[in-house]
């Protein structure tokens, strides 16, 4: 069940997280396999990805976003 990385995935869509790198704070913020997030925006010039989860907005640096695998949520 491969997914595509969150950094490359198109914006404005809902994604279900498939795999998460070993960055502990991600789990505490609610980003773990099975969580559903809205990819709001990707910043240019190597900037971060902004996702919305429940009522929270979380910025994920490019290197983290690239190692989070997601599947598009129907």
């Amino acid at each position: 069940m491969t997914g595509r990385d969150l950094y490359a995935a198109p914006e404005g869509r809902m994604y279900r997280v498939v795999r998460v790198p070993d960055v502990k704070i991600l789990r505490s913020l609610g980003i773990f396999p099975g969580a559903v997030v809205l990819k709001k925006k990707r910043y240019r010039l190597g900037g971060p990805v902004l996702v919305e989860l429940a009522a929270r907005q979380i910025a994920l640096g490019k290197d983290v976003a690239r190692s989070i695998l997601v599947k598009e949520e129907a």
Partner: protein
Amino acid sequence: MGLSTAPGGRVLEKAGKILLVGPPNVGKSVFFSRLTNIHVISSNYTGTTVSFMEGTYRAGKARYTIVDVPGTYSLMATSPAEEVAVSFLREGPDAVLFILNAADLEGSVKLALEVMAYQVPIVFALNLVDVAERKGIHVSHAVLERELGAPVIPTVAVRGRGIDALRRALDALLEKKRAVTSYFTGLEGIVGSQSALWERARAIAKRAASRADRRISFLDRLGEAMLRPWPGVPLALLILAASLGIVAGGGELLRKKLLLPLVSGTIVPFFERFITSLNLHPLLESVLIGNYGFFRIGFEWIVALVMPYVLLFQVQFAFLEDSGVLPRLAVLFDGIMRKLGVQGGSLIQMFLGFGCAVPAIIATRAATTKKERLMVTAMICFAIPCTSQTGALLTLLTAYSPWLVAAVAGVGAVVLICVSAILGRAIKGRVDPLVLEVPNLLMPEPRSYFKKLLARLRQFLAEAEGPMLIAVLFAAILSESGLLERVGHALRPIVSGWLGLPEGAVMSLILGIIRREMSVAPLMELQLTARQMFVGAVVSLLYLPCVSVFGIIAKEFNAKMAIVISASTTATALLVGGVLNHLITLFERVF
């Protein structure tokens, strides 16, 4: 040093303890300032660099110590702040006051479940109810009370709504002493796994929250706008420029109109009359009150030059911090900071460096890896002038032309890029990428803002005052004893030859060791040409960190690191200064 005391410190007598717990950005400090009297102190948890606020809470006749535990997203001890929160909970406090976030029920309920596993008597405040309503979320506190098995009081802390009901609930809980109300016992199975906790929290949130129509406020719209590159980046640059302008301009105004007249008009003459009346040994008298005497330059430089700028910087930095602007800057500039080998969050510590390198280097404790912490500290020491130095440099250089200011800033930027590139490869280890929750943009609540500002200023005075007084004494003895002239002659080949500066400028190079902005002040008294001013300004910008920065690096890292950074900054300053001097003289000769 300063105010650090162990938990339950001696400053407040041994009283029962109440823990104020909650996720970051939920307004905990607003509760803290409303529930405590003025007697509030900032302490460090022993053995860590995590600071927290402590105050006194009165429940009827009984007195308690209320502790504002650092905000965390979980209790899995993934960061020093979380470890401190866990150890506080393990000490078995009398009660926990947990702040739920009505606008983010899921996240705060998840943390609440982790805290409840510690079986400590607990009361919930459901805060930010107004923000939730605006976002179209209505939360039933009655349902939450049933789900969590403990009182839940809806509040809007900034306007004081619900605080009295909260006090009554907390006092009732404290009266019952050891009565353990029915806790949500079904926790054993899931407390270890974040995902299971999130499932449970989501279920509770779904039952307690219901949709309503959204009424987005101006602040919410501005907060969203500041997250988009357009208009976010221009707005951010405007904010940074404005805050530096307020500090430099305001500092200058405060200095010229209020402090300088006060110092040279009343304070220094008073000491002059007093010391001369003692008719001491002439050398001692001149060291105390000569034109570089301790009492003269002490007041002129510390009170009239350092204080106005540092005060104003802390005033507006605390505002930017509480309003939620800083995380937006970190997000917008993460791309650029990543290219410099660090991450968006480091921009906040570097911006703090424009205030004073001492609190900035302390703030680098927030960095998650040693490499990032070291890189940011070095970048601050190499190319970021502190407020008073910025102010002094501005007054110095604008006397010639604003282009000189841009040129010096340009040199600083180039050095910053080179330093980050070199250190990025030289230092082993890695820099964790940005992972940051973006809080709501909000107007800071005055009372908790002023309490934080007061604690910040007290901490600055406690830590920087000592080194500054030593610096002034060192400068007074050095200059009045004539030692300076001898050192000047010894260093003349370096100073005059290589940098093309008059011998008197030696004073600024040496004083730079003591306090960076003191390396700029003496330049003002010498009539220097534009080239000399430019070279002098570049050298004092890149120069060795001042003694208080040297002290902080030695304390936060180790003495070896302080020496390495001092040596490399001095070498760079002299090298770059000399090269620029020769290039410009060459350029002048050709045209």
